[in-house]
């Protein structure tokens, strides 16, 4: 039933730039699976963990900020159908983390582990070659807690639930095990250009 006179404030945007089924928004909606964690920076750390949960490398806050950083401007796409264009982020790419650790990825997949217990799974090939970073600035300022600060994963070529907020580490996995939303009906990979929203898509 079409509602007379109701117009969406969000346009569909240019299909060359906006994936199918998405609407462009100027605001930055917030969505999470739990309360906003408040991790004090002096106790914050980020770790790479092996398939058996053994710690391979770890960085404290100051150490993360001292690593070579990248600043990127990207479009982000949420599975709930909003897209936000031209967002600017600064952080450390997964490539730079692996290089700093002197590591080759020991397995093809990772589970992102976050404060509050949120998890999401990713293939290493979706994180390498600059495709993924641990971001700590948004639009030139520290990321706000409700947007995932102090640091979140940023994997903009996938639906934004993969850009895990409050990330504290990546644990390598031999198989592509589903994380939180993936266990609850969402797609294992989440490519917005193939509209991989739900499992079975």
């Amino acid at each position, binding site marked *: *039933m*079409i*509602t*007379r*006179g*109701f*117009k*969406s*404030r*969000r346009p*569909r945007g240019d299909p060359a730039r906006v994936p199918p089924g998405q*609407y462009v928004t100027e*605001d930055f909606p917030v969505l999470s699976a739990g309360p906003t964690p408040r991790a004090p920076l002096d106790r914050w750390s980020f770790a790479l963990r092996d398939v058996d949960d053994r710690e391979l490398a770890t960085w404290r806050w100051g150490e993360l900020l001292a690593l070579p950083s990248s600043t990127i401007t990207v479009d982000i796409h949420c599975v709930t159908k909003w897209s936000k264009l031209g967002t600017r982020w600064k952080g450390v790419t997964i490539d730079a983390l692996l290089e700093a650790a002197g590591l080759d990825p020991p397995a093809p997949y990772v589970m992102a582990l976050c404060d509050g217990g949120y998890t999401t799974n990713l293939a290493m090939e979706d994180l390498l070659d600059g495709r993924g970073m641990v971001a700590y600035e948004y639009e030139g300022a520290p990321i706000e807690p409700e947007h995932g600060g102090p640091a979140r994963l940023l994997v903009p070529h996938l639906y934004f639930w993969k850009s895990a907020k409050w990330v504290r580490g990546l644990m390598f996995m031999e198989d592509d095990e589903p994380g939180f939303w993936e266990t609850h009906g969402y797609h294992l990979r989440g490519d917005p250009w193939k509209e991989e929203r739900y499992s079975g898509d």
Partner: protein
Amino acid sequence: MSIPWLTAEVVEIAAETPRVRTIRLAVPGWRGHLPGQHVDVRLTAEDGYQAQRSYSIASPPGEPAIALTVERLDDGEVSPFLTGELRVGDEIELRGPLGGYFTWTVERGGPLALVAGGSGVVPLMAMVRHRAAQASRIPAHLLCSWRTAEDVIFRDELARLAARGDALEVTHTLTRTAPADWRGHTRRIDRELLVEVLPGPGARPTAYVCGPTPMVESVADLLVSLGHMPERILTERFGPTGGRS
């Protein structure tokens, strides 16, 4: 029993304040509701875009139409449409009634401690109107917090009901600015105000707290710290600003 989407017809739109409208809807197949319940409203644009929001029912059970009292949120998606574009005769989709937890009827007894922040008064108003319609003398205290005097809704009706002398007391407090002739309270709801206005824990009141999330959580915590049992404090959060999605 399923909860289908129903097609409701707008039969009346009344302005409560410049930003607030009460929309009366005729809903074929409406099965009645309990005071405190809400409906989900769904709007569909021509390009297929849908937006859905929940609105508390302001009217008591037993009336031929249901009333939704909606505050316009400037950055909202649905409230500007409902308070600005919607016309008598239009049809909108809704489902309900929803939510059995945040409800009260006279059968539940009292005394009642009702605390509202802004549009959080809407479900509490359904309870107050139901209480009046039942000619109940269950003691009830309604404490409402508003930003300014211009934001106060249902002011005259509440004053009239409180003047009936049937154990309903109404207190308003303004949190931002007050006109020169304002003789009521002028601050955020704090511990002292709750102690002054509401029955103490010894009276074993049931408290219903509704409004923006920060206000609801603050008031609920204060009530617990005053000795009220957590099981007797029911809350309904409206989200950050009071609008619910």
